[in-house]
């Protein structure tokens, strides 16, 4: 069996031959039951479409007004990176870097990786499950957490409700849409890996459900 025709379970190390999945199907590890891959109901180009959408939205999310807050006539406009800047100026530079990385740079890089993988799949270029794209995607997905930042902003809105007048800006909506696009693209990525490998090898043995 060539390395390209195998998929190892990342939790138990069990090797599997690659199978072609139907729409909405998942492939489970035969030993530990972990979901190895799933085929999106939305079609084979889902990862590509949503990763490009996310990339397009990432720029306005970063540079348009995120929220504005007013108190006693004074209005303060905040962008996505205003908080990062405040932490940096306040001497908490490591924290500023962490927020910048997890909130924008890593999600943006992950979207680039997913878009590249989607393009390769579209062009019928095989993607090695143990190759650079798959590995970098697995590393980045742990640290790309824009959905947590969205929740944090929503919590802040509720908390600030009685203290200042908060108005949501277009940057926040773009950021929310980017986070959703990233989640959908991430969930569709394994499909592309499998689809590409299936085309390359045409073998099958993971347990579909």
């Amino acid at each position: 069996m060539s390395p390209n025709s195998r998929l190892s379970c990342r939790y138990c190390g069990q090797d599997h031959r690659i199978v072609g999945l139907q729409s909405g199907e998942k492939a489970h590890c035969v030993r530990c039951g972990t979901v190895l891959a799933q085929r999106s109901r939305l079609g084979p180009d889902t990862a590509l479409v949503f990763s490009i959408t996310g990339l397009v939205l990432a720029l306005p999310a970063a540079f348009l007004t995120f929220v504005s807050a007013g108190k006693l006539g004074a209005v303060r406009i905040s962008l996505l990176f205003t908080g990062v800047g405040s932490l940096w100026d306040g001497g908490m530079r490591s924290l500023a870097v962490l927020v910048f990385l997890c909130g924008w740079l890593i999600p943006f890089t992950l979207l680039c990786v997913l878009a590249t993988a989607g393009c390769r799949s579209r062009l019928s270029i095989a993607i090695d499950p143990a190759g650079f794209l798959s590995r970098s995607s697995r590393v980045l997905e742990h640290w790309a957490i824009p959905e947590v930042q969205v929740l944090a902003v929503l919590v802040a809105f509720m908390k600030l409700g009685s203290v200042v007048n908060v108005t949501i800006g277009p940057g926040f909506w773009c950021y929310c849409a980017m986070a959703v696009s990233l989640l959908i693209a991430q969930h569709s990525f394994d499909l592309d890996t499998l689809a590409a490998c299936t085309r390359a090898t045409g073998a099958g043995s993971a347990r579909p459900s």
Partner: protein
Amino acid sequence: MKRIFSSFRFQSRSTASALGLAAAIMLIPANLLPVLSTESSGSNTSNTIVSGVIELWRQGLWALALIVFTASVVIPVLKVLGLSWLLLNARRGVPRDPQRLTRIYAALDFIGRWSMLDVFLAAFLAGLVRFGEFSTVTPRSGIVAFAAVVVLTMLATKAFDPRVFWQPLDVSQQ
């Protein structure tokens, strides 16, 4: 073959143990030091994670208090305890139920990211609420310790390789 496996298991375990221990130590300053201070109309109040949750509860924002308590107190503690449990099981030769341990690991891996909520919240409030003497929010040193806990627990989970639970079975099959 056995030597390779035991060396691999030791590296995975020792790195995860060191990171998990560091996270457990950092939990102390993260919970004792103030994470945010609010200056409003001349009065200055500093809140730790727990006192912030209590304040939200007193204001009647129960759902919010519950979300912050879960993300900032329950999940980090659960991750440290869960990781310790997995490490103890990995020390055994052949674990009794590797499938259950693998599921626990996958759950810990998934929930870890939600602890970043308080870090993002502090960064957002620090950037937005800056109205001079009327109202200003400033992050305090506790949030740095808390961010360290989150990063260390995420690194510890990443360093721990759940395949150690299955390798004794692989070796016995060979």
